[in-house]
């Protein structure tokens, strides 16, 4: 049963030029995405900078309005699914307690002038949860759950290190007792040893509270470790989706193969054959015709330059947007065995 699903979701940003700020074009950051997240799973959303993964994550929570598409939130327990994009602002605010987000940068996502207690209780007040005393109790409880001392409520963000601030960010997301948490690069700005602490915390919380995660990251090794399923994004579209172990073992899309082969592993002496991509990703302002990946793809044929491939299922549970997907025989992530 999917907790959240999106159909044909698009986020286009207008490009304005000149004195009159006329719209001269659009950046198609997210361009027709179908996605569903099952209750209790961790779905990884991976891609390189500018691929639209953060825009997609934010649109799913209606943090900005999608240009088109439908998002269904399934409150479960026999309730009818709710079309999020159609909700009036007040109803949406009440629904937000079920869907929370943790941002990448723990320095800029906490208001420096608010004590941690206020930062944690204010959103609860806006969602109409509990009395002031209840909310403060809740703040102390979630701080405890993320391994922070209860006296943190009366302190300011600058008194904490990056890792501690990210714990506070996670506590804030937990406070309204959500079903779904979107984690937008939550460990990318943390040092290795602290990153492992936060990843372990996220796993523990999920097991204890039955949370559903959408984990957005550019880091394949973290995605592989934490996620049940992975969706790979390239230039606003999902090019491949499937269960983590299978996707890493035998990717279906040439872009996934290239990502996996570029992954640096902390093992000496793997001088592996790399699938190097030519050039850089094109700008999402001027997407290439046909398959957006074709200018960098080593398998590109005439058909790829003309016709954009749809994301379709090839093997049970696995989908790829490639005309030649199942036949390419692509290499998976390097393992110790092949080293």
């Amino acid at each position, binding site marked *: 049963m999917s907790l959240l699903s999106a159909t044909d979701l698009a986020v286009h940003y207008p490009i304005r030029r000149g004195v009159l700020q006329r719209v001269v074009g659009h950046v198609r950051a997210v361009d027709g995405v179908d996605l569903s997240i099952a209750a209790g799973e961790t779905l990884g959303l991976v891609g390189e900078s500018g691929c639209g993964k953060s825009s997609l994550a934010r649109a799913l929570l209606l943090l900005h309005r999608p240009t088109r598409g439908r998002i269904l939130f399934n409150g479960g327990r026999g309730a009818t699914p709710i079309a999020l994009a159609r909700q009036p602002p007040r109803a949406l605010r009440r629904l937000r307690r079920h869907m929370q987000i943790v941002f990448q940068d723990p320095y800029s996502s906490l208001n420096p002038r608010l004590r941690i207690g206020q930062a944690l209780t204010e959103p609860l007040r806006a969602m109409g949860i509990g009395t002031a005393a209840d909310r403060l109790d809740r703040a102390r409880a979630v701080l405890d759950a993320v391994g922070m001392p209860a006296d943190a409520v009366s302190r300011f963000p600058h008194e904490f290190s990056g890792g501690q601030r990210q714990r506070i960010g996670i506590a804030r997301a937990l406070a309204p007792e959500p079903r779904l948490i979107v984690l937008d690069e939550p460990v990318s700005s943390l040092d290795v040893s602290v990153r492992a602490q936060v990843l372990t915390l996220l796993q523990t919380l999920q097991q204890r509270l039955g949370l559903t995660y959408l984990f957005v990251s550019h880091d394949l090794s973290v995605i592989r470790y934490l996620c049940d399923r992975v969706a790979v994004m390239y230039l606003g579209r999902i090019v491949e989706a499937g269960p983590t172990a299978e996707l890493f073992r035998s990717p279906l899309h040439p872009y996934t193969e290239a990502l996996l082969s570029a992954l640096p592993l902390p093992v000496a002496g793997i001088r592996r054959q790399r699938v190097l991509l030519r050039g*850089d990703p094109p700008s999402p302002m001027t997407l290439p015709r046909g398959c957006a990946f074709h200018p960098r793809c080593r398998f590109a044929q005439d058909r790829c330059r003309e016709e954009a491939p749809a994301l379709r299922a090839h093997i049970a549970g696995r989908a790829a947007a490639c005309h030649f997907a199942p036949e390419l025989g692509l290499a998976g992530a390097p393992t110790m065995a092949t080293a």
Partner: protein
Amino acid sequence: MSAPVLQVEGLSIAVRREGRRLVLTHPTNFALRAAQTTAIVGESGCGKSITALALLNLLRPPLSIAAGRILLRGDNEVQDIAALDPGSPAMRDVRGRQIAMVFQDPMTALDPVYPVGDQIAEGLRRHLNMPRAAAIERAVTLLRQVGIAAPEKRVADYPHQLSGGMRQRVMIAMAIACAPRVLVADEPTTALDVTVQAQILDLLRELQASLGMACLFITHDLGVVAEIADDVIVMYRGTIVERAPVADLLGGPRHPYTQGLLASLPPIDGSRRSLRPIPGQVRPPDEIATGCPFVDRCDRALAVCASIPPPVVALSASHSAACHALAMAG
């Protein structure tokens, strides 16, 4: 083994703060050899970047070299960089000519108002007295060498017209322009996407093989270390805690900190076995420690660790670690 091109002896870096001098890196020794890459790894604040800057005498007040020598071996003379004035003509002759640097963020390291060709040509004109036209022509060759398509057009581009990966290639072209003996690269791929990072690491390896430079590579990423380094130095709070050839360090780390770093990484076989994070966090540098810098986070700490700095234990001819527990184990 060849004589080192650059030898760092007892290098210590300090910062002046509110009239007090605070030591950020404790006496550090290492050597760089031709055609070899030494990586310094560590987390933020361990002193790896200031060590890199010190090699080019680029520390600015309140940072300064507190003690030690940085010996650069030329064809027939040895120069102590640490003894030169940072702004002196002698230092300027070394910088860019003998030792060159690639920075993490090419957008701030490149000048936005000059075409990239002129920026590459600048070093050639300054150090090799090339006339402008010849230097620009050489810049085109260098751009081609670092894998930029249509270099004769790109040479006139400004930095903002290039992608992040191309800018980093320009920085590398600039660094290798005068065929330096030593290349210092400070997190050169950290700001790049993985597919572009793979391209840049391959490029650096190829260039080193063809030009024979000694390379010091600063990074926090043990995966990148595995790709690029011959030897590895692990730093923690301004101290070298372990050093070894790359295969020994990643395959058989001995210092509890290095072991903790590797146990903090997701398993490379894709298994979901739980991570073993290092508890706690790095103490700020102004909390002066008398004993081992890692004592507060170490699961093998002994009573002696809090009070006396650990001895450097030779584990093999090329592998050493600074740790009381290892010393006692013999």
